[in-house]
């Protein structure tokens, strides 16, 4: 069947900001789909509030709306653009829920928009727990026994029927938000209440716990002729009870007999048909009883998902791209397999390798949250590794995780057997390492299997690795034979692991290995286990390879190092830069070689680069690629801290680093060299010192005065960074959080209270500098730049100050000899400018600047690094006229029960959004709405501010009252307002007795919270207030300047709806540069 000719334009909904459970896999799927549909000649209208995505590049869709992904805004876009169809299955749960709302409120019908890919009834049937359960019964498939509840009374009755332990699953939520496994009544009450609140339709499923059963996923595709294929089967190493996003998973399924596998395959197709998914990809999850093979259906997602991104990367079968083509009328047999080029897409990939995915967590950012894993997803990223055996893939994945492990290893400190048993039994991020120690302590596979529920098939390999590692201990490198080293490498051992066991350095182990002639080979991911010739150089390394595949070319080539697994502080923004680098290089006729280990990203789409190496980003793995490819240069600037950490090692091995020199990076990062640099340029920085011991730190703080900002050197995302207000706090910090030592010094900076922070992104070629944008933070200094709201152009900085900032930035770039990107962070206190930090590399704000201004900094920087002078690029410094672009962060606090939701110098946001409008107030309001903190236009505001803000808050409150809001405040603020004649009610602080402020929040009797916490005093109350606010979904403003901005936003919302305008429209009048 050919492409449909009755539709011309299609609206694609993106997934909004990166949050836990909904990350850059939807940029990957959306980008693929938009490209595929445009190829077919459709006009594509795209909406996504996330500026850090490739999909929102103005060159990709015909009309790109960086607007909130809410029914209201999408309705306005529909009204304006009049698309014929809406594709709701590519934007995760957000896309699906938004599309559902637009159907329900009649917008789709009113404007004659057809839902393609999945119809309303289909989504409803798959997502509604009760409808799904009935559907499964109709086709004779078992569900875990369960009951539906819409309130607590029903929930308690359901519990009587199901019993404990049980699982609470809220309907229509993302990544299991609000749900969990519960073991007792108290947990049940809490989780059921939370679940009812999380579900947009107040519906939860109380389900019998299948704890310990084996868990599987099937990635299915179906076309309109009813052709069905399984793209990939996935087996979870962690058994039922842990969310699949938090599980270590393996593809393909390992421990199913052919009969069991085929039964699961048949069931998957039956579910697709019964639910009625006519075209596209879906994910079906199953549980299997290890005792007798009993099969139970858990759930299905009628859309592309994180798992489908993983399946696409694991097999080479681009699910989202094909799903888009199926949605517009093609059938699977009409689509060509991109990798073999000759065979059709209507087949099932055969793997001749093993794929292991590992989740990456960020519990260190949320110290009060429990790190026990359950049915609610908590990981922030993942890495994938491909090997010819499970051993090889597993160890590669562990080192690709970048958590300081060089492979499968344990803790060096001995632990008691009881302690180990507990660690093995409790699902948590470090459990797999406890398994290592358990085997080291002599536990048997049976014991570990019993405690953990991990299948013995996996455990036997893990035990083998422990034994192999142990046998190596005490050996010398010289005594190792080529055969032994080869065997170790085939089992996935890294040079670093071998070195540690043999008491040598990694460099020595590497030298010995190369002496013995042991090198990895490279294999293609070809979808067909070698049956057909592959044409796409999508490669992985293995020590199995006798013969290499896809030999390097003799073209001019550049290696781009990606960012590895997403984490807080290093995510999609850097992937965006890497993708731009690849596209720019290809345009210049230079071969672009991508190295990355993150399966969620656009950069690991084999379509993006000329060659893709799906490999861990360790020195060993990257050097092996460089030795093979002999690139003309390596780009380390774009992937965040991960590739930067490799820069020196690569340079020492003789690998040419493109752009800014490693020495310049060191000059910016080494504190004493940095101070020299600033002194030379006549620039100021906050008084500071470098402490190599606790005493030194205290002495420095004494000298420069409190409050001080303390942090370990060389960190990204403000890891362990804190503002301390007195000596006692500093001493505690040095004792508990960070130990200062000669090897790991601690930085102590004077903290500039009430300063305004400014970020600048620029590009330079060594002799010329182009400023991308000056970004003014809305919050005062002290909040990590990744967590703060900021605006382009600046709203309070004087012309003179902006000129001074520009001049300082130019001087820094030229002095450092920056070739490529540079980001500078400043603080402005009064009219004095301080340089806080200089990062001669891509920053998190590069994509935001590009979307705000239309200047593709990352592409331009790549061209400079590849040798083009800035003057030849035809780029001009952008000047934003007639619009404001506000960037706001999205936080994961609601995922971490018990975690404190306060902002500070340590970054904790997972993603960001952008709001654009002609006025700052409306841009701010849009950004708040897009980040799911919609500002109210009426209602009650709770105000509680620190003493320093008590004067400044008065006009803010007066404005609120003038707009009809009522106010409640805690004692101090209440007094201040009353003195100023602002009407206000008083409410108890938490320790003053009930009802107190958090009672009001829990009852949702508050619509907005203004709570400025930076002082030391009321910290505990503040933390509780903000935590409750996030749980209840009430917007919470934490600085005075943000409160001023919020008032502007509220006023703007009350007086109008703002403009809905595409980036193409914004950029057109100023003649923006096309984004390549």
């Amino acid at each position, binding site marked *: 069947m050919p492409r449909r000719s009755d539709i011309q334009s299609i609206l694609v909904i993106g997934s909004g900001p990166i949050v836990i459970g909904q990350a850059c896999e939807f940029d990957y799927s959306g980008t693929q789909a938009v490209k595929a549909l445009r190829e077919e000649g459709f006009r594509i209208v795209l909406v996504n509030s996330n500026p850090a995505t490739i999909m929102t590049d103005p060159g990709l869709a015909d009309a790109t709306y960086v607007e909130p992904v809410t029914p209201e805004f999408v309705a306005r876009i529909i009204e304006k653009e009049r698309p014929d169809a809406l594709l709701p299955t590519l934007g995760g749960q957000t896309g699906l829920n938004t599309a559902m709302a637009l159907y329900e409120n009649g917008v789709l019908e009113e404007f004659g928009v057809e839902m393609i890919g999945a119809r309303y009834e289909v989504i409803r049937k798959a997502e509604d727990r009760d409808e799904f359960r009935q559907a499964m019964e109709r086709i004779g498939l078992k569900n875990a026994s369960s009951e539906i509840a819409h309130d607590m009374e029903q929930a308690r009755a359901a519990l009587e029927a199901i019993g404990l332990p049980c699982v609470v699953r809220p309907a229509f939520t993302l990544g299991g938000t609000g749900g969990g496994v519960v073991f007792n009544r108290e947990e049940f009450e809490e989780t059921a209440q939370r679940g009812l609140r999380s579900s947009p339709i107040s519906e939860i499923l109380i389900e019998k716990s299948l704890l310990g059963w084996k868990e599987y996923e099937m990635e299915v595709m179906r076309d309109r*002729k*009813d*052709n*069905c*294929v399984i793209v990939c089967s996935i087996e979870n190493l962690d058994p039922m009870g842990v969310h699949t996003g938090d599980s270590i998973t393996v593809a*393909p399924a*390992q*421990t*199913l*007999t*052919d*009969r*069991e596998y*085929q039964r699961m*395959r*048949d069931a998957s197709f039956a579910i697709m048909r019964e639910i009625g998914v006519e075209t596209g990809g879906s994910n079906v999850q199953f549980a299997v009883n*290890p*005792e*007798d*093979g009993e099969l139970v259906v858990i759930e299905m997602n009628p859309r592309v998902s994180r798992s489908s991104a993983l399946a696409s990367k694991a097999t080479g079968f681009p699910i989202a791209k094909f799903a888009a083509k199926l949605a517009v009328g093609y*059938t*699977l*047999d009409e689509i060509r397999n991109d990798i073999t080029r*000759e*065979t*059709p897409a*209507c*087949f*099932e*990939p*055969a*793997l*001749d*390798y*093993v794929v292991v995915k590992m989740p990456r967590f960020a519990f260190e950012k949320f110290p009060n949250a429990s790190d026990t894993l359950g049915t609610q997803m908590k990981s922030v990223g993942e890495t994938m590794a491909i090997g*010819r*055996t499970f051993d090889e893939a597993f160890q590669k994945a562990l080192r690709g995780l970048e958590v300081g492990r060089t492979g499968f290893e344990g803790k060096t400190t001995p632990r008691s057997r009881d302690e180990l048993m507990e660690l093995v039994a409790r699902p948590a991020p470090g459990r797999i390492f406890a398994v290592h120690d358990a085997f080291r302590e002599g536990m048997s*596979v049976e014991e570990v299997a019993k405690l953990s529920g991990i*299948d*013995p*098939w996996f*455990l*036997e*390999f893990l035990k*083998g690795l422990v034994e192999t590692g142990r046998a190596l201990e005490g050996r010398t490198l010289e005594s190792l034979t080529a*055969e032994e080293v*080869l*065997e170790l490498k*085939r089992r996935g051992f890294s040079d670093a692991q071998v070195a540690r066991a043999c008491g040598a350095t990694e460099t020595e182990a590497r030298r010995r290995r190369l002496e013995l002639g042991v090198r990895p080979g490279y*294999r293609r991911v070809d979808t*067909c*286990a*070698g*049956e*057909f*010739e592959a044409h796409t150089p999508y490669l992985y390394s293995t020590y*199995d*390879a*006798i*013969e290499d595949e896809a030999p390097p070319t003799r073209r001019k080539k550049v290696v781009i190092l990606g960012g590895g697994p997403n984490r807080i502080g290093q995510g999609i923004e850097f992937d965006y830069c890497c993708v731009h680098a690849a596209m720019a290089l290809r345009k210049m006729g230079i071969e672009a070689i991508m190295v990355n280990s993150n399966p969620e990203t656009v950069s690991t789409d084999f379509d993006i680069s000329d060659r893709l190496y799906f490999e861990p980003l360790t020195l060993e793995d990257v050097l092996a690629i460089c030795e093979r490819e002999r690139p003309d240069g390596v780009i380390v600037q774009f992937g965040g801290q991960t590739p930067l950490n490799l820069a020196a090692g690569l340079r020492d091995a003789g690998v040419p680093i493109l752009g800014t020199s490693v020495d310049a990076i060191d000059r910016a990062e080494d504190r004493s060299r940095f101070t020299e640099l600033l002194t030379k340029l006549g620039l100021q920085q906050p008084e500071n010192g470098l402490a190599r011991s606790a005493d030194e730190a205290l002495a420095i703080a004494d000298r420069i005065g409190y409050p001080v900002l303390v942090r370990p050197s060389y960190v990204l995302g403000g890891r362990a960074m804190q503002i301390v207000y007195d000596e006692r706090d500093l001493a505690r910090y040095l004792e508990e959080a960070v130990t200062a030592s000669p090897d790991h010094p601690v930085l102590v900076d004077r903290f500039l209270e009430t300063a305004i922070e400014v970020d600048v992104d620029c590009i330079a070629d060594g002799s010329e500098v182009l400023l991308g944008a000056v970004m003014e933070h809305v919050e005062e200094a002290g909040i990590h730049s990744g967590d703060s709201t900021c605006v382009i152009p600046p709203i309070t900085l004087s012309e003179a100050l902006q000129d001074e900032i520009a001049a300082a930035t130019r001087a820094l770039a030229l002095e450092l000899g920056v070739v490529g990107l540079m980001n500078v962070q400043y603080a402005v206190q009064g009219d004095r400018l301080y340089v806080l930090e200089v990062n001669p590399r891509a920053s998190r704000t590069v994509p935001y600047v590009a979307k705000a201004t239309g200047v593709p900094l990352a592409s331009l920087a790549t061209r400079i690094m590849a040798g083009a002078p800035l003057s030849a690029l035809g780029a001009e410094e952008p000047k934003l006229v007639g619009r404001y672009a506000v960037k706001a962060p999205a936080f994961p606090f609601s995922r971490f029960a018990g975690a404190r939701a306060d902002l500070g110098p340590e970054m904790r946001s997972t993603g960001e959004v952008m709001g654009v409008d002609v006025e700052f107030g409306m841009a701010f309001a849009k950004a708040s709405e897009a980040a799911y903190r919609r500002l109210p236009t009426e209602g009650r505001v709770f105000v509680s501010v620190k003493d320093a803000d008590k004067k400044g808050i008065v006009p803010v409150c007066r404005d609120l009252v003038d707009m009809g809001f009522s106010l409640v405040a805690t004692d101090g603020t209440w007094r201040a307002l009353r003195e100023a004649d602002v009407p206000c009610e008083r409410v108890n602080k938490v320790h003053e007795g009930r009802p107190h402020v958090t009672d009001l929040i829990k009852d949702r009797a508050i619509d907005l919270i203004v709570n400025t916490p930076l002082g030391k005093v009321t910290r505990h109350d503040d933390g509780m207030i903000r935590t409750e606010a996030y749980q209840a979904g009430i917007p919470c403003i934490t600085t005075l300047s943000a409160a001023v901005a919020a008032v502007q936003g509220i006023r703007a919302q009350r007086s109008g709806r703002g403009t809905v305008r595409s980036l193409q429209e914004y950029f057109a009048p100023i003649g923006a540069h096309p984004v390549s």
Partner: protein
Amino acid sequence: MARGGPPALLVLEDGSSFRGRSIGAPGRRAFELVFNTSMTGYQEILTDPSYAGQGVLLTYPQIGNYGCRAEFDESDRCWAEALVVRELAPRVSSWAAEESLGEFLVRRGVVALDGVDTRAITLRLRERGAQRAVLSADEGDVTVEELLAEARALPSLEGRDLTGRVTCRSPYDWTEGLDGEAPAADALPLVVLDFGVKRNILRNLVSAGFAPRVLPATTSAEEVRALRPAALFLSNGPGDPAAVAHAHGVVRELVESGLPTFGICLGHQILALAFGARTFKMKFGHHGANHPVLEEVSGRVDIAAHNHGFAVDPDSLAGTGLEVTHLNANDDTVAGLRHVALPAFGVQYHPEAGPGPHDPRHLFRRFHELARGGVPAATP
């Protein structure tokens, strides 16, 4: 590189050799080496009579994970001559396992090795075609030259009738359906000509409503007719279909008598040959569980198990009364045929699965309808 164990050596006719670990019975076998891309179902593959004369390399690297179970056998013995894998599972994990694959191989006398780069061998077979090979397992000192000479001395499968090795010695009735289902009370009497039939074919036939009587490959047309069957089934089997000459005439006579007939794999090829079409040996054949089969009339695709080294030449069909009903969508080879005037059809692939997908199982029901005189062979 293996986890210890006696050495084994595999030598291909092109002179390449691979050293690994013996994971099966000791001894030496010569065979044609083919690769199979199924990720599950090793026991079903090893016991499939179509593999007589062949050694199997499994491209999926981790094999033996769920062990072996008697009911997975597709016949009463292992027919594959040898097994080549990347890594035998160090531990079996499945409630279904009755023994490990290693134990199974030893018990069934199959030579096998692991610890070799199976992808390198696969790419070699893809480029150069299926290779004659010799595997020596746990035999002490053997030289590559010695094995190479044996490999090169092995006759090609082309022109060889191997059905005599695998067919039943005497007729028998089969009564077990899928999942232990009992035959229907009104089951249609069916003759199965056994060229190496798989049990899952017989199970599917029972579940579709037949009462199969399995006869040796050399049974004559009169003997078949004497049983007054409602239909005829031509089974899968090993070797070159053109060499199974005695069956060509028998099949033609029976089909022309109006007996509804269905052939699978070798049976499908014999049906073609019976009406004057030709078959040819493919470069490395189709062996796997993921091939798309396109039904021309409906445009629908079934994912199906494949296991064949020979195929029907579509250019030889003119004037035979046969027409192509199904194509392999990967390479457009003939995947299904029917007679335009007579109630006979055949498929090159394996609707019975075992191992493999169940998508084309509906063909057994279609056969049953044909046998009841319901609908013509190729109408969906």
